[in-house]
C-alpha cells in the first residue's frame, strides 16, 4: 500500500511539473473525473447521511447533463463506511489511493472527520465536510462548508439575549455527551460569562446518546426557570434523543413562549419524523432553511424533488452546504484547468457561489465559508419560519476567540501565514 501511494504521489508531482500537455497521474489518463462520496448508508447515521449521498449524485448528474468538467464526464464513486469510524479512514484511503478520486465529499459526525483527517493529510487528498461543527480545526486538506460556532451557536444566543428574542437572562445548555456539544458548550459558556451572565444563571447538562427518560431533566429545567428571570434552553441534543425530549416538554406544559428551546441539530429532515404541533415556536439556528423565499432556492428544491422523484422530500442545511461545496469545487477545477489537489486548493480561495440561501457565499483562506445566519421557529407543518437573520454573510472563525488557548491561534493558508493553527506566520519576510 505504502509503495503504491508513493508512486501515485510521484506521478501527480510529475504531472504538475510537466503541465497539462503531458498525461500526468492515472486520473488524468482516464476520460472521466472521479469524485468520492464518503457517507454512511447503513447503521445509525444512515438516517442523515443517505440524503447527502443523493445530493452529490444529483449534482454530478446535473454537471454531466451540462457537458461535464474539462471536457470529461464526472463519475461519483460511492462507498459505505457504515457509521463505523475506523472504517471511514479505511474507505477514505481506498478512495484516494485506489480510485484516485479528485475530491471527496463526506462525513457527518465530528468523530468520523477526525478519523479520516490523517489519511487526507498523508495522501494529500481533498475533503468537503458539509455539517455544522464545533470548530477548533483547520486542515490544509479539508474545506469546511458547514457552520463554525460563530455562524450558528453564538448568533442564536445573541438573538435570545436581544429584546426580539425575549431578553433571556438564564441559560440551560443541554447536550448529548460527546465532542461537539462539549466543545460548543465550552465556547458558549465562555461567551455568556463575557457578556456578564453570572455563573449561577447557567446550567449545563449532559445526557447519554439516545436518552429517552427526560422527566427529571425537564423538571429540573422548570425549577431552574422559576427563579423569576426569563430562561431559554440551548440544545445540542443529538438525533434520536430529541423526540422524547420535546414530547416531555410538551406534556409538562412548557410552551415556547415560556421557555424557548433553540436547537443546533434539528432541521427539516429530523422534523419529518416528529409530530410538530407541540413544538411550534421552538427555534433552530442554521445557515439555510427550506422556507427561504427566493428563485435560487425554489430551483434547488425543484431539482432535488425531481431527482429523488418524491415531491414531499425536504431540503436542509447540510444539503445546501454540499451544493455550495460541489459548485465551488467545479469552479475551482475550471479555474485551475486541472483536478490536481494543490492547484484546486489555491483556486478555491475567494471562490464565490450564489447559494439557495439567497447570498453570495465565499470561501475564505481559513478553509471555512462566509455564510448568513438564520433563526427559524418551528411551524405546525414541520417547516421553519425565519424570524431573524444576519444582514449578510458572517465569516467563519476556525478558532473561537472565547476559548483563551484558541484565541491565540490563526488559520490562514495564504502567505505569509500558510498554517491552520499558528501563533505566528510561517514566513516572516522575503528572505
Amino acid at each position, binding site marked *: 500500500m505504502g509503495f503504491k501511494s508513493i508512486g501515485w504521489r510521484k506521478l501527480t508531482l510529475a504531472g504538475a511539473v510537466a503541465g497539462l500537455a503531458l498525461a500526468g497521474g492515472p486520473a488524468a489518463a482516464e476520460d472521466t473525473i472521479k469524485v468520492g462520496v464518503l457517507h454512511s448508508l447503513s447503521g*445509525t447515521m*444512515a*438516517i442523515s447521511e*443517505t440524503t447527502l449521498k443523493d445530493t452529490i449524485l444529483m449534482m454530478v448528474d446535473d454537471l454531466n447533463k451540462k457537458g461535464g468538467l474539462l471536457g470529461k464526464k464526472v463519475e461519483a464513486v460511492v462507498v459505505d463506511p457504515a457509521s463505523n469510524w475506523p472504517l471511514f479512514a479505511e474507505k477514505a484511503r481506498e478512495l484516494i489511493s485506489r480510485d484516485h478520486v479528485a475530491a471527496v465529499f463526506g462525513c457527518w459526525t465530528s468523530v468520523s472527520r477526525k478519523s479520516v483527517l490523517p489519511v487526507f493529510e498523508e495522501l494529500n487528498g481533498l475533503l468537503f465536510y458539509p455539517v455544522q461543527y464545533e470548530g477548533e480545526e483547520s486542515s490544509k486538506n479539508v474545506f469546511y462548508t458547514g457552520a463554525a460556532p460563530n455562524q450558528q451557536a453564538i448568533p442564536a444566543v445573541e438573538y435570545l439575549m436581544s*429584546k*426580539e*428574542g*425575549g431578553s433571556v437572562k438564564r441559560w440551560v445548555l443541554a447536550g448529548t*455527551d460527546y465532542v461537539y456539544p462539549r466543545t460548543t458548550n465550552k465556547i458558549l459558556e465562555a461567551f455568556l460569562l463575557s457578556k456578564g451572565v453570572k455563573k449561577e444563571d447557567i446550567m449545563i*447538562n*449532559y*445526557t*447519554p446518546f*439516545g*436518552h*429517552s*427518560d427526560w*422527566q*427529571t*431533566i425537564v*423538571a*429540573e429545567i*422548570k*425549577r431552574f426557570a*422559576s*427563579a*423569576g428571570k426569563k430562561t431559554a434552553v440551548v440544545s445540542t441534543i443529538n438525533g*434520536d434523543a430529541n*423526540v*422524547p425530549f420535546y*414530547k*416531555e416538554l*410538551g*406534556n*409538562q*406544559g412548557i410552551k*415556547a*413562549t415560556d421557555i*424557548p428551546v433553540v436547537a443546533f441539530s434539528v432541521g427539516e*429532515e429530523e422534523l*419529518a*419524523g*416528529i*409530530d410538530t404541533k*407541540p413544538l*411550534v*415556536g421552538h*427555534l433552530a439556528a442554521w445557515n439555510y432553511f427550506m422556507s427561504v423565499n427566493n428563485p435560487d432556492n425554489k430551483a434547488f428544491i425543484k431539482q432535488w424533488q425531481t431527482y429523488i422523484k418524491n415531491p414531499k422530500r425536504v431540503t436542509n442545511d447540510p444539503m445546501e452546504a454540499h451544493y455550495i461545496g460541489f459548485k465551488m469545487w467545479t469552479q475551482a477545477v475550471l479555474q485551475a484547468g486541472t483536478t490536481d489537489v494543490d492547484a484546486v486548493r489555491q483556486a478555491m480561495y475567494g471562490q464565490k457561489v450564489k447559494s439557495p440561501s439567497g447570498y453570495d457565499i465565499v470561501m475564505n483562506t481559513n478553509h471555512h465559508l462566509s455564510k448568513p445566519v438564520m433563526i427559524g*421557529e418551528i*411551524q*405546525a407543518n414541520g417547516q421553519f*419560519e425565519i*424570524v*431573524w437573520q444576519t444582514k449578510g454573510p458572517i465569516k467563519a472563525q476556525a478558532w473561537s476567540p472565547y476559548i483563551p488557548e484558541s484565541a491565540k491561534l490563526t488559520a490562514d493558508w495564504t502567505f505569509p501565514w500558510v498554517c491552520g493553527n499558528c501563533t505566528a506566520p510561517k514566513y516572516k519576510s522575503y528572505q
Partner: protein
Amino acid sequence: MLHRSLPCFLALFAALAFLGLAAPACAASDADLAAAVAKLGEPGFSEKLEAIETLATLGDTRAVPALQALTDGNLYLRDADNLLVVATEGDPDYRLSDPLTGAALGSAGFAELSRVIANNRLRSAIHTALAKLQIGDPDPTRRLAAAQEIARDNAPETAALLSEVLEHETNAGVRAAIAISLAKINLSSELPAERLAALKKLSDTLTLEVRTLLAPLTSANSDGSFAEPDPTVRKEASLLVSRIDRRLVLQDLALNLFQGISLGSVLLLAAVGLAITFGVMGVINMAHGEMIMLGAYTAFCVQEAFRMWLPESVFGLYLIVSIPAAFVVAGLVGIALERGIIRFLYGRPLETLLATWGISLILQQVVRSVFGAPNREVSNPAWMTGAFEPLPGMVLTWNRISIILFALAVLVAIGLLMRFTSYGLQMRAVTQNRPMAAAMGIPSGWVDALTFGLGSGIAGVAGVALSQVGNVSPNLGQTYIVDSFMVVVFGGVGSLWGVLAGAMSLGIVNKILEPYAGAMLGKILVLVLLILFIQKRPRGLFALRGRAAEA
C-alpha cells in the same frame, strides 16, 4: 352586559394608566380598531407589536379573532390586493374571512396567500392582550385564565387593574384566584401593611413561585442590614419561606418517587416478556428487543390505517386496537422463531444466544427495508397528552400515568394466566420437569411454542406502550435489551415478583441518583451497584428455591 361594558371601562382605565391620555370614546374607536387590526399585517415585528399593544389598550373584544388567528398562524395577506384575511383550510382552496367582522371573502389557493408571521415575543404579547380583552368574558374559566395571564406581569399597573376586576367579579373561585394573584404582586408593594396582608393571603400558597417572590423580603443587603425594613413583615416572610421549603422537600421526594416508578414501569414492560422466555424457559433471547420493535411498528401501522380509513373522532382509539394487534403480530413471529429455530437449540445457551442475535439483526434490517431508516411518527392520542397537577408545581404527565397502570395490568394478567388457567399449569409443569410432564400427556413441544409466543406477544404489547414515550425506529429494540436483561437478572430469574421488584427498584434508584449525579453518572452508578449486588446474591432478589432452581 358585563362583557361589553367592562372592556370599555378597562380601556379607559388602561389608557389613563399607561398613556396618561384622555380615554378614547368606545363607540368612536371603530376606525382606530380597524387601523390597528390592519397594522397586524405589517412586515416588521415591532410594528405588529405596536398594533397588538394598541388593540389591548383599545379593549374592544372584536379584536379577539384577529389576534387568535395571528397566534394560530391563520392570518394571511392576500397577494392580489394585500388585504389582511383569516384563512381556514378548505377543500381544495383556503376559505377567507374578514379578521374583524368575520364576513366571508371567498376563497383562494395557498399560493395566492402569504402568511403573517408571529414570533415568540409577539405570541407572549398576544397572550397578554387577549387576557386583557377576555377579562370580562361571560365564561368564568376564561376570566380566570385571563386574570392569571395578566398577573404574570409583576407591575403596579397590573395590581390596579386586577383590583378593579376583583370588584366586579362575582364568581367565588375566580375571586379567590385573583386575590392570590393580587397578593403576589402586592408583596412588592411600598406599604408595609399591604405587604403583610399579602403575606397572610398567601399563607396557604406554598409554591416555588411564591418562594421566589419572597426572596427579597428575607434577604440581607451587603452591609448586613435587611432588605425588608419592617420586622413583622420580615418575620412572617421567613416563616412562610421555611414552610414552603419543607413542603418543597416533600414534594420533590414525591415527584422523584413518581418518576422512579414511571421509569420502573417502562423497564417492567420491556422486561416482563423476557422474564417468560428467559426466566421461565431459559432461552437467552437476544431478539427480545426486536419483538418490542415489531409491536411499536404495529402501532404505527394501525395508526396509519385509522388515519386513512376511519373518521378523526375515533382516532384516539387506535392505541387500544394496537394492543391486541401487536400481541398477535409479535406472538406469531415468536412462535415461528421457536418452531423454526430455537427448539433445535434447547440446552445449548451459546448457540441460542448467537442464533437469536442473528435473528435480531435480520429483523432490524427487514424493518429498515420495509419502513425506511428514519424514525416513524407515532402520535399520542389526545387522552394521553398533557398533565395532571395534584399540587401546584407537581406535574404528572398522563402518558406516564397510563404506562404505569398499563404495566401493572399486564403483570397481573400474566400472573392470573399462569396461576389459574390450565395452560398456565401445563407451562409450569413443563418448565419444572419436562419428561414427567410429557409422561402425563402434556404436549410439551406446543407448550414451549405457546410460551415463547406469549413472551414475544407481551414484548409486542410493551412496544405499543413504549412508542408513546420514545422513538419508533429500527434500532428501538437495542435500547431496551440490555435494560431488560438487567431487570430479569436483578429480580431473580423465573420470578414475576422479582421482575416487578427489580424494575421498580432500578427505576427508583436511578431517578433518585439522577438529580445529584446527572444522567450519565447516575446510570453508571446503578450498574456498579447492580454488579456488587449480583456478587452478593448471584440468583437475584427473588431466587427460586428447590428443584425448579436446579432445572
